[in-house]
C-alpha cells in the first residue's frame, strides 16, 4: 500500500461529490473543439514519418522508384505518339493525294 492510499477517505459523501462535479462542469462547460481537421493532420504526420508507406497519396513518388516513374511516363508518351501517328496518317495521305492530283494534272508540259 502506498503512502497516498493511507490518506484515502473511508467513504465519500455522494451528495457533495455530485455538487462538486456540477460546479466543475459548470466552470468547464465550454466544449473545446479543434480549429483544424485532426484526422487530416494525423494522416499527414503518419505519411511523413512512414515515408509514404501509409496514407500515401495517389501521385506520391515516394512509394515507387522515381526512375520507374520516368520510364513509365516516357513509354506512355511514346505510345500516345505512335497511336496518334497511325490515326492521323490515313488522313494526311488522303489530304496529300487530294492536293497533289490537280496540280499534277494541270502541270504544263514542255515538249
Amino acid at each position: 500500500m502506498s503512502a497516498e492510499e493511507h490518506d484515502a477517505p473511508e467513504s465519500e459523501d455522494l451528495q457533495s461529490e455530485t455538487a462538486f462535479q456540477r460546479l466543475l462542469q459548470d466552470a468547464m462547460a465550454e466544449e473545446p473543439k479543434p480549429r483544424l481537421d485532426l484526422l487530416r493532420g494525423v494522416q499527414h504526420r503518419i505519411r511523413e514519418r512512414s515515408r509514404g508507406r501509409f496514407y500515401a497519396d495517389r501521385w506520391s513518388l515516394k512509394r515507387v522508384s522515381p526512375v520507374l516513374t520516368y520510364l513509365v511516363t516516357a513509354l506512355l508518351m511514346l505510345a500516345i505518339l505512335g497511336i496518334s501517328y497511325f490515326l492521323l496518317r490515313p488522313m494526311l495521305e488522303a489530304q496529300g493525294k487530294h492536293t497533289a492530283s490537280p496540280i499534277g494534272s494541270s502541270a504544263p508540259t514542255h515538249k
Partner: protein
Amino acid sequence: MSEYSGVDPSDDDPRFIQRLRRRDEHAFNELVRMYEVRVYRLVYRMLGRQEEAEDVAQEVFVQVFRGIEQFRADSKLGTWIYRIASNLSKNRLKYLARRRSNSQDELTEEGADNESSHAQGLTLGESARPDQLVEGYQVEAIVRRAIFELEPDFREAIILRDLECLSYDEIGAITGLTEGTVKSRIFRARALLKERVEQALGDKIR
C-alpha cells in the same frame, strides 16, 4: 455532460482491433473519428492551450498507430488511448514548464473574455439580479483558474473523474495506480481545489 461512458461497443470488436493491427487505414480513420473529440477535450483540459492541444491530440493518434501492436486486449481500447493522451499531455506540460511557458493562461483568459462578452450581451431583463450573475461568472472563472493551478497529477485526477466522469477502475487503468490511490488522489485534489477556490473567493470578498 461528458460523452464518455466507457467505450463504444464497436471499438473493442476483435475484428476491428485486428484491422488496426494490420494497419488498415480505413479502420484507423474510423478510430480517429470515434475518439478525436474526447481525446482533444482531455488534452485541452490538461494543457489549456488550443495550439498545444491540437498538436498533442494529433500526436496521440500517431502513437496509437505506431503502438497498436503493443495494445493488449486485457484493457479497453478507449482506456489505452486515454492513457496515451494523458501521458503525452503530462510530458508536454513538463516540457512547457521547462520553457517557462505558462500553459494555463489562454484558457483562463479566453474564459474571462467569454465572461465579459456574455455579460456585455445580457440585458437587465434577462437576469433578476445582475450582481448574482457577475458573481456566478466570477466563481466559474476562479474555479477554472484553480483547476489549472493544480499540479498535473491532481489536475488529471479531477479531469478524469469529475469532468470525464470515468470510474475509479478506468482511472486506475489510465494512470496505472491502484483504486485506493486513485480515490486518495481525487480526494486530495478536490480538497486542494476547494481550499484554493475558497481562498480566492475570500480574497474577492475582502
